[in-house]
């Protein structure tokens, strides 16, 4: 075997369409979806692939996202490789069924094109949709560009369907600012994907020759044990996820880590971002470094299971950690990511100061200057002592 990664030529493509090609290459067999902006381009393209015979799959136009996730459960229970995509209100409408999909251990793969939750109604990007679905028991990753969107959409199937894992998986990509941009990316050919991702062979499925009862209810004597099992499985899925990412690295030359580091060497101040905020933050960090500021960047890729150890290691002995959230926990400690990061560091004797900044709500643009402002403000705050729990960057009035 050649050690050379299976390089393919770079093509320019809208990221949504790249995701639909990834789903096609993964040979998804059953798709149930309902239109919601900005996820629509993905499923429109899949529908046309099915219509043209380019993807041998069943595509069901359900009448709501609630039914989309319900139909996905039925599809997965029948033994088919199952995919769907949604955003915002759609994810919120699915909410009830998301918990059941993971508890019943169906390896459904879903793209969430992240969008603000109403109200006021906003079709633009932030992370309030997925943060409201934080505790659904799915594996959740964030991607920051078109190539990552493509790669993770294929890897998600391999992770979810691992018999040691069997958990549904969400790939989060930012709506519009990522989903609707055209980027240059490398695709894989079908042969390489088939080798990487063999056909799905379900451990249990609805089959009259071997009848099983799925979705039985639990009395208090057993509910806690079932939940514990789910918790242990999700936590342990970490090693399987990392293994799949490493394998992908060998195949394509693109390796992924739970927490990515950018210019962190010698950094006293670290910014932490998720999704495509990271792309812009990189520019800002480079410029700040050039100006002599000891700033680095951490990108949190794996959201569930939460990579406690990777994060602690990546932060090292930095003095200040600034967490940039793209969602607000109303009436709470600020940003949901910031509060989780704070609790990840609380047990440590030596920990950085952690400040929370909330940026880019409802499609508000976040330019490189924002990070420079935030770092300057955070430094000033540290000198005087933090004045508030969190700051809403750029808010008027």
């Amino acid at each position, binding site marked *: 075997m050649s050690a050379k990664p299976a390089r393919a030529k770079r093509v320019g493509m809208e990221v949504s369409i790249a995701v639909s090609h990834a789903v096609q290459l993964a040979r998804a067999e059953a798709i149930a979806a309902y239109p919601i902006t900005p996820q629509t381009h993905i499923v429109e393209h899949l529908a046309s692939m099915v219509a043209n015979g380019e993807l*041998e799959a*069943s595509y069901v136009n359900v*009448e709501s996202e609630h039914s989309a996730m*319900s139909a996905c459960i039925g*599809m997965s229970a029948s033994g088919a490789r*199952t995919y769907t995509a949604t955003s915002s209100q759609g994810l919120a409408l699915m909410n009830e069924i998301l918990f059941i999909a993971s508890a019943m251990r169906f390896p459904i793969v879903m793209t969430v094109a992240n969008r603000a939750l109403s109200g006021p109604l906003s079709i633009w990007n932030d992370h309030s949709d997925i943060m409201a679905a934080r505790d659904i028991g799915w594996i959740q990753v964030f991607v920051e560009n078109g190539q990552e969107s493509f790669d993770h959409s294929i890897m998600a199937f391999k992770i979810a369907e691992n018999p040691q894992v069997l958990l549904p998986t969400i790939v989060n990509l930012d709506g519009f600012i990522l989903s609707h941009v055209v980027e240059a990316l490398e695709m894989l050919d079908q042969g390489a994907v088939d080798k990487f991702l063999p056909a799905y062979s379900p451990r249990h499925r*609805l089959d009259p020759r071997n009848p099983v009862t799925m*979705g039985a209810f639990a009395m208090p004597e057993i509910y806690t044990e079932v939940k514990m099992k789910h918790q242990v499985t999700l936590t342990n899925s970490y090693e399987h996820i990392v293994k799949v990412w490493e394998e992908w690295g060998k195949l394509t030359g693109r390796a992924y880590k739970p927490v990515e580091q950018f210019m962190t060497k010698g950094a006293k101040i670290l910014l932490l971002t998720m999704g495509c905020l990271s792309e812009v933050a990189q520019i800002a960090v480079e410029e700040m470094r050039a100006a002599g500021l000891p700033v680095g960047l951490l990108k949190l890729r794996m959201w569930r299971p939460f990579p406690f150890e990777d994060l602690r290691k990546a932060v090292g002995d930095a003095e200040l950690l600034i967490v940039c959230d793209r969602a607000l926990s109303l009436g709470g400690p600020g940003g949901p990511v910031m509060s989780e990061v704070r609790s990840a560091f609380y047990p440590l004797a030596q920990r950085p100061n952690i400040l929370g900044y909330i940026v880019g709500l409802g499609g508000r643009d976040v330019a490189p200057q924002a990070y420079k402002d935030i770092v300057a403000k955070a430094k000033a705050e540290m000198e005087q002592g933090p004045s508030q729990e969190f700051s809403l960057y750029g808010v008027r009035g």
Partner: protein
Amino acid sequence: MEKFGFAESPKYDVYVSRLMPREEYFTSGHRSCQGCGEALAVRWVTKAIGKDAIIAHATGCMEIVSSGLPQTAWMHPWIHVAFENTAAVASGVEEGLKILARKGKLSGPPPKVVAMGGDGGTTDIGLQALSGAMERGHDFTYVCWDNEAYMNTGIQRSSSTPFGAMTTTSPPGKQSFGQSTWKKDMVAIAVAHNIPYVATASPSYVFDLYFKIKKAIETPGPAYVHILCVCPTGWRSATDLSVRLGRLAVETGVFPLFEVENGKYHLTVQPPKVRPIRDYLKPQGRFRHLRDPEVDYIQKRIVERYKDLLAKCGASVPEFPFLPEEAPAEEGA
């Protein structure tokens, strides 16, 4: 019906046990109440479905009494996800099986898919998912266990609760005579979806129910069967009267047994003599508070609706000697 030997069946009534399948797919040991009409219906429906089928079930009485982890009363492959989505789950199962069959991943033809839910899970919270599934034309059968209220949560009214009935959320009082709305016509809603097969059935008429389910299963495309299930707990009726009450619902015209095949109505059970509504209401505690004006109102409306149905079925209209005198409309309560 002839196809299944139904026309001859009355001749063989004494041989019933030999004609019907002996296999039990809904096993004993489940926790339904004494006299549960629904459990009786489930037993016969699962027999009619046969072995080669997959069941998706909504949350509700039947799910709760039959599937406490780690036990199950279901011999079929069976899946329960939530309350309002069983038709969507069944859609997914059917589509999944279809694509697996097309890709040669199933040995033999795909199993039949049956969705089941109570009247709340069907006519209220599950109506959207059911409408979507019927409109999309999946090859599946939906069975509604209609016990006319949310019995599992403690007898709250649903849109399928009949006019005048007492439930815990439609109690009679100084300002109320109980349920103030007429029962939602779910069968007409199913018919309006232009699906190939719609029927009503009752476990008090086992042959009729059995062959309707068989027909529904074998009809390609969506089929809907609405089964009236007597609930002694919620109806406040004696547990030994369940089969009798199911018969009275048919004999009084409250719940006529008919089928609609490709839009064509056909009355499958015509009682020799239609009985007055009082015969049906009286054994049920949930109607105990009703006074004559309300009962007369119900009687008139039942007869009107029954006549409409008979006209649709092209059946002869019998006499209704018990109909109350035409009188100026009185206050209902």
